[in-house]
């Protein structure tokens, strides 16, 4: 038996935890690798240690995470926290870094559950200190009870804005305004999808509750905002935006931005899995079957790492991928896998009925995704502007990867995690070719920065010695 067992699960959010718990229950020798010190992922960050008042403030959806973490802790799955995964090959070999020690490990099956990250949408001033992702601010609240000291503005698109504002309202933090940047026309596209969404109606009820509470709390919510700019020299001191054809300036030292989520596809891309552009979610997704299997043999991907579906759907997907691993490892036959997965498939389908509605409601216009402001930085690491990217395209570098080679955008420490989508949107805009025809940045190991000294700690693996 290899030291790391039959199944490696990478990522400790609801998808990974459920997959590992289920697999261990089915008798599979399972190891879960996670970058965080404690299980829960970003959605349930700090859930084991959150004091009761904070957990109550965050709401019942957050508290649900405690049960998932408890079930995982009670299982036989091995847990390796604070472990960075820096490579994944098509052969299933995984490069990890733990306590400064690099290793290459392997198991019969891999389930990727690396979650999602907030979509980076460049706009003027977005690199100023004082501008932070809304999800990042929510992590501060979840893990440490830390909140903006002098009020804040939330801008962007998507349901997280309302949830976070509602949590701040309950915590007594001053929210100066919520600016929704998806255009009014989205309502017309979302309306026909509402009847189906009502089948997952608890999400809609909750959205209205947040809106109502925010209204009662006197927090202005503006829809159809455009032209967002962050102003300041060394620090944000105000924002500017267009609403109903008028330009507004609002003094604030803190702007929280959110433009929906995109899956963390660095590992699926490094492993050579096939990816497809998803026009609803406006991002590339790894292609999977109903059980999470990717195009790479023995590698599955689940939860928001596979498709943005939220925490509940992620649990079901994790359960299903574990059943499929059990089938592949001869613990279950196909009939038994299908029988045990029937309920989760149904629940997942029902839960995901909200998604087409939300995707249409918060669809971002190309004018926002492919900024026309030439001075705006797109690659934050290498400081490449939209103008430089457009110039590279005009000079004949008509593919995101060519633009990367010529301009260095996407070559900094974040390895294109922030700018990959924005570059592809700008290239699509400049070449007048749809983004679905663009090739995303190629990803090669190491997918996380690792020092030469750390790499030098690699030893020949016991199995190959």
């Amino acid at each position, binding site marked *: 038996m290899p030291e790391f067992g039959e199944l490696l699960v990478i990522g400790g959010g609801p998808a990974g935890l459920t997959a590992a718990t289920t697999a261990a229950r089915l008798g599979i020798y399972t190891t879960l690798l996670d*970058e965080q010190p404690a299980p829960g992922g*970003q959605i349930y960050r700090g859930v084991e240690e959150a004091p009761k008042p904070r957990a109550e403030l965050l709401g019942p959806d957050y508290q649900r995470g405690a049960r998932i973490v408890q079930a995982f802790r009670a299982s036989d799955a091995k847990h390796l926290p604070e472990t960075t995964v820096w490579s994944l090959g098509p052969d299933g070999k995984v490069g990890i870094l733990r306590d400064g020690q690099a290793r290459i490990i392997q198991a019969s099956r891999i389930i990727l559950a690396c979650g999602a990250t907030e979509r980076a949408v460049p706009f003027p001033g977005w690199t100023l200190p004082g501008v932070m992702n809304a999800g990042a601010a929510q992590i501060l609240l979840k893990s440490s009870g830390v909140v903006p000291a002098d009020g804040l503005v939330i801008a962007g698109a998507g349901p997280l804005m309302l949830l976070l504002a509602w949590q701040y309202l309950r915590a007594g933090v001053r929210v100066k305004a919520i600016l929704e940047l998806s255009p009014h026309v989205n309502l017309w596209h979302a309306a026909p999808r509402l009847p189906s969404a009502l089948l997952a109606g608890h999400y809609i009820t909750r959205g209205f509750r947040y809106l109502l509470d925010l209204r009662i709390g006197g927090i202005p919510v503006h829809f159809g905002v455009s032209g967002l700019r962050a102003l300041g020299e060394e620090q944000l001191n105000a924002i500017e935006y267009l609403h109903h054809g008028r330009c507004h300036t609002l003094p604030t030292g803190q702007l929280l931005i959110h433009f929906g989520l995109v899956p963390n596809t660095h590992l699926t891309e490094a492993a050579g899995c096939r990816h497809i552009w998803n026009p609803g979610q406006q991002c590339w997704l790894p292609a999977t079957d109903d059980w999470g299997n990717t195009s790479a043999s023995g590698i599955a991907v689940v939860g928001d790492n596979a498709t943005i579906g939220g925490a509940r759907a992620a649990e079901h997907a994790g359960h299903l991928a574990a059943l499929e691993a059990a089938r592949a490892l001869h613990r279950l036959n196909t009939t038994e896998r299908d029988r045990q997965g029937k309920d989760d498939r149904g629940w997942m389908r029902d839960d995901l009925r909200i998604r087409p509605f939300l995707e249409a409601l918060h669809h971002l216009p190309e004018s926002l995704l492919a900024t026309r402001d030439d001075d705006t930085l797109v690659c*934050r690491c290498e400081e490449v502007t939209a103008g430089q990217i457009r110039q590279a395209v005009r000079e004949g570098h008509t593919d995101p990867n060519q633009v990367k080679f010529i301009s260095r955008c996407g070559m*900094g420490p974040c390895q294109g995690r922030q700018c990959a989508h924005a570059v592809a949107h700008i290239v699509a805009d400049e070449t007048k070719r749809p983004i679905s025809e663009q090739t995303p940045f190629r990803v090669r190991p190491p997918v996380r*920065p690792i020092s030469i000294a750390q790499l030098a700690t690699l030893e020949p693996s016991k199995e190959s010695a």
Partner: protein
Amino acid sequence: MFRRLTEPAGEIVTVNIDGKDVQVPAGETVATAVLVSSVGYTRTTPVSGAPRAPLCMMGVCFECVMEIDGIPNRQACQVRVENGMRIRRQYGAGASPVA
């Protein structure tokens, strides 16, 4: 500028942020401690020297890199505070850890 909703309970450690000793809860991330201590920006960029501060708090964006215990380019959002830790704003690519 960030603040704590409640006074930290439980174990407290002392870290030094840009020359100032600060008491923070054990186990929290360096980035959290720094944001509460009102340092403003946490690094300047190697290319233009522009000021930056933490953006994603989940290890993705690398905006929060700081010099921690003499080693530059460490992600402040991924490193947890330890008693006696020296945390410094990072200028540009950061000084070499080798003296």
